[in-house]
Structures are given as structure tokens and as C-alpha cells.
């Protein structure tokens, strides 16, 4: 498939040049002291008073040589490992929403550990998703155990790769200890690290924070998988210009990427972004805007320039329910990004600008994910698939429906959705004109009523619970059948 590109080769080079000018001239405010020392040691100019680090172009060029071309997500079951760009586009749930739409009452509330267990199991079963980025927070987690509870509830219920962040070093170390128990020891964990870490260490414009930067350095030193997402918001934290937002965001990506190479040469990277244009009528955040997709296409092009995998939060929506707005914002954003050559999309399950998880939304997004994968496959050319012999056999006026070839190919040639309706109108009316949210919730309930094949065995669960004080067993509760989507 040829990608859609917004910029010419020369323009891409000029954006790169502009980023070098930003890094060398304006610099990055680095609030983490260890990071400042690393930059200084690599030949950057560090202002001891302000904390601003200026990165000369020669330094960027030198460390850029070490960027590796691929990134691997690992899961409890190696069959679910995914390497991008080779296995792309991979689909990841969008994550860390504080709230959930309660599937029983339909009202919004804080999410809990049990919700994470439910969602993890569901995502394990949904073929559209490759990686489970922990969808919500857990409001019921004991203080200081938030990350442990979230990762435990997630890892217990899926064999797919799990991804999320941690707020401080203590919680990060707990999570790594959890990973080691699951992997069967620290040595085994180092070989197959099944927790995939993600942070936003760069706060636009041009600032690197303390805690997330610390975590990225720590994980990179250990050779564990970690990457960052760059999130400029035009009009607020970058200029009100798409090309300037691209140049500034690219400088921000480069600062993080070269820092990681300084820590450990050859550290895998993902060029991941969530770049938006603020709605200046009110200043509101607009991740569902079409400009989020346009910028993603631009950043994917920049990622190809550096030969690193491209990703981002894309296919997000500002809508609060599974309405037309939710559908077109997710659909248009994700489709544009895919055509622009993205390798990894964080797109599943969240409504209301990343603030609330919804079971129906994740089912709909699973279908969108499957359609995107189908779209990426495009039309594969082969002599055999041209079916010239079959066309001759059936001939003018015949039918292909009774041909064995049709039987063999009909389950794989077209993607067959379960949530989208293709019923005749009479049947749709007989069933009670069920709208998409209810159909989606019905599908989710059916899956969650089954036994989870991915769940930890009892012995492993016991070992984990006895290792961590205050950690309690978590189980998903499914979705009760009196939920709004019952019909």
C-alpha cells in the first residue's frame, strides 16, 4: 500500500532542520537532574541556572544513527508478541481514564480494579486489539498500590501484551517485581519482559519532567521496553500552525529519543504522538478533531524519515455517547492515520476526550480495528486470485454462489462485523430497532459470561498475593443481564 503524504521529501527535510534549530537554539527545559547530567556528558550545553539543555545538531546526528527500526511488545503468551512495523498496524486500547460508564446502570462513575479485570478479559478475546493498555485507573486501590493493582488486574486476565505507566519509582519497582513473579524469576523476566512501559516525559512546549523522565532513564538502562508520547496542543502548547506544531513536536521527540540512545545505544523507540489543535472558541481540548489526524499523518512521515515505528493516540472522540460524532471522529481519524502509514494506534474504548471508558465503545472500536487491518491489507495481487479459470467456468449469466472457491474464501475475503447491522429492515424492526450501543453491549456481555482462558492459575495468583502487602484478589464480575443493552 502506498501511503498518503502531506509533505514532499524536501519539506520533511526542512521540518527536520527546523527541529534542529529549535533544539540547538531554544533548547529543552530538563527538570530531571540525572537527564541533565546525561545530556551534558554527551556534549550538550546545559545551563545550570535555568536547566535548559541545548542539543547541538552534531549530537542529534550522532545519536540518531543508533535509532533501531523496530519495537516489540511482549505478552504472557509469546504467540501474542507484536513487533512493529512488521506486524502493524497494531491496535492498542486508549488508556488511563479515571471513569467508566457503568454497564449496569448506564451512569458514569469512578473505575475500579474489578472493572480493569473485566476489560482485560474482554480485550483478550477481541481480535482487533493486539495490546491491552490499561483502560482505566482503579479508584479503589489502596494508597501507593495503584499501579500494582492495575497491572495485577490486567495481567491476570489477558495473555496479550499489557501496557501502561506508573506515577513514581516505588510503584514502578513494584510493577517490575510483579512481572518477575509472573515470568518465573528475574532472569526469565529480563529475557521476556511482559510489561510494556509508556510515559509522557515531554510536556509541551519543550519541557522534560522529573518523574516520568526518571522512569524512562531507569527502564532504558535496564533494557526494558519503554517509549514516550509527544502531545503538543496547537494554540496552547505549540504555535497555532500545523507545520510549526510538527516541527516543535519533532524536536520534542528527538530530545527524548536521543536521551534514550545516550543512556543505552540501540534502545527501541516508537515515534508516538497525540498532537491536537485546541478549540479556540473556548480553549477546550479537541482530540476528536480532524487536525489530530492530519498531524498524525505528518508525524508518521517524520517517523519514516528517521526509520522508526510510528504510532499515536488516534481515532479518539470528544463525544460522550456512541453517537454519530463518536463514530465519525474515531472512524475518520483512525482511517486517515492508517492511510498516512501509522504502525500503532491507541484507539479503543474511551469516550469524552479520554476521560471515560465504555464497554460498548470498545466493542465498536474492535470492529473499527478489524476494518482498519482489512484496509491495510488492501488488494493483494496474485495470478491465482485473478480467478480467470473460474470466471471462464461460470461464464456470462452464471453464479459464483455455488462454487467451492466461494465456500473456501468467503470467511476470509470480507470482514464480517457483529456490532454493525446488515439485517433487512423488517428484521431490524422486529428486534426492536436496537441502536448500536445496545448491540455492542450485548456482544460484550456474551463474551464476559464465558470462562476466561487467560486467567492466572490459582498457584501463581497465591504467590503474587502473598508477595505484596495490601494487594487483594481481583475478579471481574461480567456484565449483568439487566443492563440497558439487554434487548
Amino acid at each position, binding site marked *: 500500500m502506498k501511503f498518503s503524504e502531506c509533505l514532499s521529501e524536501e519539506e520533511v527535510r526542512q521540518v527536520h532542520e527546523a527541529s534542529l534549530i529549535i533544539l540547538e537554539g531554544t533548547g529543552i527545559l530538563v527538570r530531571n537532574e540525572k537527564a541533565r547530567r546525561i545530556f551534558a556528558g554527551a556534549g550538550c550545553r546545559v545551563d545550570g541556572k535555568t536547566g535548559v539543555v541545548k542539543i547541538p545538531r552534531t549530537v542529534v546526528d550522532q545519536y540518531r544513527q543508533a535509532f533501531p527500526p523496530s519495537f516489540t511488545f511482549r505478552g504472557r503468551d509469546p504467540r501474542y508478541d507484536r513487533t512493529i512495523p512488521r506486524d502493524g498496524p497494531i491496535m492498542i486500547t486508549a488508556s488511563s481514564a*479515571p471513569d467508566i460508564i457503568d454497564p449496569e446502570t448506564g451512569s458514569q462513575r469512578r473505575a475500579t480494579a474489578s472493572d480493569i479485570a473485566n476489560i482485560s478479559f474482554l480485550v483478550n478475546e477481541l481480535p482487533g486489539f493486539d495490546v491491552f493498555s490499561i483502560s482505566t485507573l482503579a479508584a479503589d486501590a489502596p494508597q501507593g498500590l*495503584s499501579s500494582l493493582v492495575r497491572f495485577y488486574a490486567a495481567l491476570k486476565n489477558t495473555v496479550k501484551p499489557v501496557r501502561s505507566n506508573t506515577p513514581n519509582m516505588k510503584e514502578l519497582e513494584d510493577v517490575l517485581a510483579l512481572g518477575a513473579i509472573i515470568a518465573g524469576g528475574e532472569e526469565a523476566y529480563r529475557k521476556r519482559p511482559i510489561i510494556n512501559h509508556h510515559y509522557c516525559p515531554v510536556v509541551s512546549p519543550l*519541557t522534560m519532567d*522529573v518523574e516520568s523522565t526518571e522512569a524512562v532513564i531507569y527502564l532504558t538502562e535496564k533494557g526494558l521496553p519503554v517509549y514516550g508520547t509527544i502531545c503538543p496542543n496547537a494554540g496552547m502548547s505549540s504555535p497555532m500552525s500545523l507545520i510549526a506544531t510538527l516541527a516543535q513536536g519533532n524536536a520534542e521527540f528527538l530530545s527524548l529519543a536521543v536521551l534514550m540512545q545516550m543512556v543505552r545505544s540501540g534502545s527501541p523507540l516508537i515515534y508516538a504522538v497525540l498532537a491536537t489543535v485546541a478549540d479556540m*472558541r473556548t*480553549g477546550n481540548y479537541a482530540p476528536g478533531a480532524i487536525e489530530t489526524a492530519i498531524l498524525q499523518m505528518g508525524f508518521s512521515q517524520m517517523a519514516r524519515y528517521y526509520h522508526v515505528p510510528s504510532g499515536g493516540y488516534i481515532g479518539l472522540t470528544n463525544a460522550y455517547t456512541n453517537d454519530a460524532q463518536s463514530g465519525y471522529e474515531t472512524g475518520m481519524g483512525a482511517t486517515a492515520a492508517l492511510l498516512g502509514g501509522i504502525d500503532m494506534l491507541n484507539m479503543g474504548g474511551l469516550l469524552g476526550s479520554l476521560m471515560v471508558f465504555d464497554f460498548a465503545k470498545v466493542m465498536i472500536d474492535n470492529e473499527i480495528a478489524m476494518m482498519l487491518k482489512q484496509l491495510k491489507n488492501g488488494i493483494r495481487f496474485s495470478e491465482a486470485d485473478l480467478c480467470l479459470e473460474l470466471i471462464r467456468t461460470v461464464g456470462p449469466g452464471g453464479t459464483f454462489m455455488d462454487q467451492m472457491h466461494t465456500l473456501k474464501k468467503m470467511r476470509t475475503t470480507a470482514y464480517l462485523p457483529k456490532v454493525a447491522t446488515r439485517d433487512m429492515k423488517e428484521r431490524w424492526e422486529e428486534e426492536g430497532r436496537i441502536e448500536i450501543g445496545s448491540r455492542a453491549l450485548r456482544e460484550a456481555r456474551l463474551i464476559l459470561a464465558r470462562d476466561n482462558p487467560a486467567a492466572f492459575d490459582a498457584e501463581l495468583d497465591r504467590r503474587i498475593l502473598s508477595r505484596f502487602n495490601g494487594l487483594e484478589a481481583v475478579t471481574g464480575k461480567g456484565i449483568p443481564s439487566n443492563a440497558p443493552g439487554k434487548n
Partner: protein
Amino acid sequence: MAIQDIFNAVMEFDGERTAALVREELGKKTDLSLILNEGLIKTMDEVGRRFSAGELFLPEMLQAAKAMKAGMEVLRPHLSSGMGGRKGTIVIGTVKGDLHDIGKNLVAMMLEGAGFEVINLGVDVGTEGFLRAAEVHKADLVCMSALLTTTMPAMAATVKALQEKHPQIKTMVGGAPLTQGFSDQIGATAYSADAPGAVETARKIMAGRVERTDG
């Protein structure tokens, strides 16, 4: 119509001209309350009206507030204490562990535009920082913001410390992951979902019309 010129200068976002025109009126011994109310304060009512109607965008609102502030700075030394110079003092900051301050700065600018004395402490402000600033500046209201869900607990600690040491100081919290429920839970005086709401709530608090908001 010289007072109208001040009003127009603010509405055209021209701070320098606003300041110059105020100076000119002071030279002419124009009634101070006329300059204050008709020239400057009235612009904010007009800006608020046009913003609500969708005619003005947020950056225009900010530019108008800046221009108005430039005029106020010239006028303030001439005002007597009772003349509406001081609507109340507000300390504002992003809580410990959080570097996100776009929303908070927006609220700070709009509060200034509305005529409050605003002390903006910046980002990553700990409980001690809020307490000290509230004491030094004799704050009426302390506003706290968080974007990261992980930094929300820091707010609870600050609200609690303020209540214990200075129960007369009101608190307002905000930020994308916050809710009225969270605000109630930590015992903040008020919660606001957005910047214009924060200004409105601050006005009510200062007028003594809000003891605690309820959802």
C-alpha cells in the same frame, strides 16, 4: 468621547493605548469612578457577553483582559481603597508532581481580567508553597489545578492543611480529571469544570454567596 476611547482601546486589545488614554484622563482630572467603571470594568462585561455568544474566541478574551490590566495598573495608585480596586486576592497553582499549567494559567488570566488580585505560583506546588503564599498575600481564595490523575491526592493534603491552619480561606479545585464528587470528598469549598465557571464561582465566593458548592 474620551472614556469611550478607553473602552474601545481595550476592545481592540491595545494595552499601550489603553494605558496612555487612562493617563490622559487622569491629567484632565476626570472622575476616577467614570474611568474605572465606564472605561475599564465595562469592557469585561462586554467581553463576557460576546464570548458567551461565541463572537469572541478565548485568545481575544485574554488579549482584552491584558489591555484592561494595562489600564488598571495606571489607574490603581489613584484609587481609594473602597473604589473597587480590590475584589479579593487569589493564590493559584498546579499541585505537587504536576507540570501541566495551560488550564490553570487560563483561569489565572481570566481571574485577573475579572479584577481579582492573582498570585500565580506556577507548577509543581507543594502544600507548604500554597500555605506560605496564602499567608504572605493574605489570600481570600486558594485555587488548585491538576491534569494528571496521579496528582489529585496532593490536592486533598493541601485543602486539609489550609482548613486546619486558616479555616477562613476558601479553596477551589479544577482540572480535567476532577469532579464535583472528588471536590466534595476532599472538602474543597468549590469545584469548577471550566475557566469561565471558575471566574463565576470566584465572584460568588468573594460575595460570600458560596460556603460549599454542591453538585
